[in-house]
């Protein structure tokens, strides 16, 4: 919410400008960096998509969703299976997004009746269910062996750039949707739901429909990004695709940046990916422990997110 306040002070005209500048920095990475830098930029874009997606349900609607890993995993498998069945790559990504949106719309009415801890558990179990399904439905998913996805033909430079721009396109779509939601009826209604769901119903907010909309929005871009990721790395396995780590990391990114705002998820995801890259490079053995320590420190020292810091300095 502090993030939202900062967004307001930035003004509705300043907001797309800052986000746009950030997109340009990412898009120009092939000009100022090697393929490693481009890979990092692609990851920043990927996590930006996931963080913006989570923000619909977790930030605006205030529901502690841990379903991100399920959406990404489902998208990755759906895309890979479609592609291996001969569907052109980009069409496969679109199909993956539609499939994930459909599953989110079907699961939404069940798990969105839950609140608080029960919702958290229900959404996290979607990740486990996906992982168990992917491991055991060998005919379709290759089981524990995983699934190979046909590589895109072309040199490493071309592939690196292709997937950077693919992720950026998805990021732009997610960002545009976020801005539209933030300014529109849906965003306003979701904020009402986050602050007092009963009162929201009472002023006429159709809370069930709005929550399902937020849940579907939080799935659809994850589905596309998951499918694109599968095409990028060329191989997926159940535990990596349906990742509990991912499902918790993404909300952490949004909390880091400030939930319920447009810029918060972008800032948080970029900060954590860059931090992780620098940590990863140095302490491979303790990578996870350090990330864990960062999360713990974040909870204690940054309750309002990075955007909150600025506000505290000013006041």
């Amino acid at each position, binding site marked *: 919410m502090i993030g939202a306040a900062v967004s307001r002070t930035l003004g509705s005209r300043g907001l797309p400008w800052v986000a746009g500048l950030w997109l340009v920095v990412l898009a120009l990475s092939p000009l100022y960096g090697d393929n490693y830098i481009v890979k990092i930029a692609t990851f920043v874009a990927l996590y930006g998509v996931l963080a913006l997606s989570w923000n619909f349900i977790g930030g605006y609607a205030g529901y502690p969703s841990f379903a991100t890993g399920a959406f990404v995993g489902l998208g990755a498998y759906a895309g890979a299976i479609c592609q291996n069945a001969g569907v052109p790559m980009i069409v496969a990504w679109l199909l993956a997004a539609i499939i994930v949106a459909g599953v989110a719309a079907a699961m939404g009415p069940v798990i969105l009746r839950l609140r608080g801890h029960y919702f958290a558990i229900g959404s996290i179990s979607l990740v486990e269910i996906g992982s168990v399904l992917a491991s055991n439905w060998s005919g379709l998913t290759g089981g524990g062996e995983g699934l190979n996805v046909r590589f895109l033909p072309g040199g490493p430079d071309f592939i690196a750039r292709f997937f950077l721009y693919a992720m950026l396109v998805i990021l732009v779509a997610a960002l545009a949707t976020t801005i539209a939601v933030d300014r529109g*009826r849906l965003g306003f209604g979701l904020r009402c739901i986050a602050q007092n769901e009963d009162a929201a119903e009472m002023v006429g*907010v159709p809370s069930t429909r709005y929550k399902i909309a937020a849940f579907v929005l939080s799935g659809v871009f994850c589905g596309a990004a998951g499918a694109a990721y599968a095409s990028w790395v060329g191989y997926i396995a159940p535990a990596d695709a349906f990742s509990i780590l991912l499902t918790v990391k993404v909300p952490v990114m949004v909390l880091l940046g400030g939930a319920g705002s447009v810029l918060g998820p972008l800032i948080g995801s970029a900060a954590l990916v860059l931090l992780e890259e620098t940590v990863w490079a140095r302490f491979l053995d303790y990578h996870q422990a350090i990330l864990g320590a960062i999360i713990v420190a974040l909870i204690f020292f940054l309750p309002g997110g990075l955007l909150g810091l600025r506000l505290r300095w000013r006041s």
Partner: protein
Amino acid sequence: MKPLLEVEKLSKHFGGVHAVRDVSFTIGSGEIVGLIGPNGAGKTTLVNLLTGVHRPSGGVVRFEGVDVTAQRPHEAARRGLARTFQIVQPFPRMTVLENVAAGALFAGQAGSRAEAERLAAGYLAAVGLDRESQRLAATLTLPSRKRLELAKSLAMRPKLLLLDEVNAGLNTSEIDGALALIRRIAASGITVVLIEHLMKVVLSLSQRVLVLHHGQLLASGAPEAVMRDPQVVEAYLGARFAARFAGGDAKSEASHG
């Protein structure tokens, strides 16, 4: 007088507890009706049944002739059936203006957020909260929160407004201010049901009074007549006082208590 709200044999039980039992009444368009009863009589449950918060166990609710028994709260709000909460329920991290704009946008006739905020400013002025419009709702005092609750309901452009204990927790001068406000609301053509246990408020405002006791409708009629009804007196003050009040035959009435 055209009936706006018709309630037929409405019942609600939670497990074995009958909170509301076989309650029937109608509210005419333009009326001001008081709904009274001792604490625990089932008043708030009844309001929850009328606005879709609880699904009735039996009976029918009709609003403007349409069966709305199974409606959800947001549907009630959009139909023009608004209510305030006994315990005020603002959106705490929104400004006062945004709180009221929510009512205008989701249940009222505002087509956009900008229009909703413009309308909201008007309703805030009407309840005397215009100077607080940019404050966060969580920082308001209790009387101001009650006004906010009213402004929010008005912004929903209700046909029927159910005011659940809007005066609870207010002091005498604050109550007088609230009463004047309710009179103005009623004068603007909105049908009002006052849910109260403060007799003074009900008697001074209502054209008609419904008395609820142990989940059942005990009496209904003009305020003075209802107040003289021995059953009503007994429900409020106990059997012994009622016996003295009515001059004797309390034994036969005790079965109501």
